[in-house]
């Protein structure tokens, strides 16, 4: 039996009445989840061994379907429930996929249902799960994984057993699947909020007695800003996992103060390479000795300022494209060695070019986030006829902050800590930053005026 289906069956046998999935409206225990998957597999048995896309808005339906089509040995392509119809169609047409299961007629492509037709057959050994990477430009690519490769970074231990996780990521994303597998393989509970505002998230966390949260720093900054006084402290968190973005001292410090007894881990992972790094010492970046270590499941190297990775947890390749050449993979994440620590500077594509000098937005954001009165900040380039680009910043101020005084502090901080070409020259105060549906701050967008 394939990996996910088998893991679920084992959980259904060993812990049938443990709540596996819970939302504000419904809950499924392991026995119910597996039974629903079996029933769906038997209904849709015509899809056996085919390529099938899932675009399900309801996360419980999505998780049942993933297990069902795994039982049927399908290669399952996951599309986010919120992806617009035209975009899903574009992706599936590009890959020649004709079978799409969906629960939202207005959003989903008009593909055939399993009752009517089979997708192209899956070659032996091709079954698995394909995830669309959040490509920064052009058509997103489908990263072909297996459930085994996705689960390779999951810790299974006594300490993890029965953990109660809050799902802050979309369930069709790499990070969301990691949290789901972390929960299932330790027979824990996965609490899935229906929205990402602080009130919804905290209400579900309290009622589901969440003790573990995996989220981006941006998600935490929003949650901390939106929570009622005392509300966060009441969550009995044992495990906090950060990922998806560069982790800075600010968010680590805030979480340490809120949850002094929780273990705080930050992960470095990508859809393509899987989980590459897990850091637990409470500091940003990672110890440089990991670059030398050869007893890790993943090898790391610094080449020309980029982090390169060699991993058995990696994807098999992008669907429909030639296999990746070589074992080493350029993550395009810029890193810098300072003392015995390696720090992340940001994606290479994010670099702002000011008159030939490179500026890494993350480095500027880190300094601006230290300024009292700044809640969130996004640094990006604005086109300049004179010097190529200049550095711009959108700033979300703390409520009640004196904007004029804050402006002066930002200028002073820039002058004190940043080189002239790095200093933000256009600062806008905004109510909120654009945030992607992966809860990462969107960078690529340019100021419109």
């Amino acid at each position, binding site marked *: 039996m394939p990996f996910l289906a088998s893991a679920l069956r084992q959980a259904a046998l060993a812990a049938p009445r443990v709540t596996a999935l819970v939302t504000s409206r419904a809950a499924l225990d392991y026995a119910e989840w597996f039974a629903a998957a079996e029933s769906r597999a038997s209904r849709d048995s015509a899809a056996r061994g085919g390529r099938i896309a899932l675009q399900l808005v309801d996360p419980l339906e999505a998780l049942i379907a993933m297990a069902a089509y795994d039982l049927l040995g399908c290669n399952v392509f996951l599309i986010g429930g919120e992806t617009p119809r035209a975009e899903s169609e574009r992706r599936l047409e590009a890959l020649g996929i004709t079978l799409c299961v969906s629960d939202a007629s207005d959003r989903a492509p008009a593909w055939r249902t399993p009752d009517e037709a089979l997708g192209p057959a899956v070659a032996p050994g091709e079954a698995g799960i394909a995830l669309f990477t959040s490509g920064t430009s052009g058509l997103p690519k489908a990263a072909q994984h297996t459930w085994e490769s996705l689960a390779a970074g999951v810790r299974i231990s006594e300490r993890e057993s029965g953990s109660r996780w809050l799902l802050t990521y979309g369930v069709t994303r790499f990070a969301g699947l990691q949290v789901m597998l972390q929960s299932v393989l330790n027979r824990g509970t996965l609490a899935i909020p229906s929205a990402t505002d602080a009130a919804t998230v905290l209400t579900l966390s309290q009622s589901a007695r969440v003790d573990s949260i995996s989220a981006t720093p941006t998600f935490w900054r929003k949650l901390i800003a939106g929570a009622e006084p005392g509300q966060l402290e009441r969550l009995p968190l044992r495990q906090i996992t950060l990922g998806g973005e560069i982790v800075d001292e600010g968010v680590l410090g805030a979480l340490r103060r809120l949850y002094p007894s929780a273990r705080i881990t930050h992960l470095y992972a990508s859809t393509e390479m899987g989980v590459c790094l897990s850091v637990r010492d409470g500091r940003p970046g990672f110890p440089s000795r990991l670059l030398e270590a050869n007893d890790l499941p993943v090898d790391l190297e610094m080449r020309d300022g980029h982090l390169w990775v060699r991993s058995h947890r990696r994807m098999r390749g992008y669907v429909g494209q030639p296999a990746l050449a070589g074992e080493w993979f350029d993550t395009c994440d810029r890193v810098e060695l300072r003392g015995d620590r390696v720090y992340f500077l940001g994606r290479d594509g994010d670099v702002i070019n000011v008159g030939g000098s490179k500026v890494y937005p993350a480095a500027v954001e880190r300094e601006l986030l230290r300024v009292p009165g700044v809640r969130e900040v996004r640094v990006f380039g*604005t*086109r300049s*006829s*004179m010097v190529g680009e*200049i550095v711009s910043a959108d700033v979300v101020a703390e409520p009640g902050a004196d904007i004029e005084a804050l402006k002066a502090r930002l200028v002073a901080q820039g002058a004190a800590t940043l080189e002239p*070409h790095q200093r933000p*020259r256009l600062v806008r105060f905004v109510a909120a930053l654009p945030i992607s549906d992966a809860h990462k701050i969107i960078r690529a967008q340019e100021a419109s005026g």
Partner: protein
Amino acid sequence: MLSEAHKPVSDFASDKALLENGLGLDSLEFAVLVVRLELRLHVDPFSSGALEEFPRSFDELVMLYERQSARAAG
């Protein structure tokens, strides 16, 4: 912008040179001034590349923008 750059605003005179020895804007600060003016006025006289005469003083800069705005409006 002069005060932001910690340059003496009291020295301002519209006929002084904009850059180094006059008002003391450096080339990056000048670039920023151009972007800010573009956001405000929706013209950038430096974007065409066909710049006959680089404005030396504040007065010349104002005239350049006036000509450019008139052209854009016409």
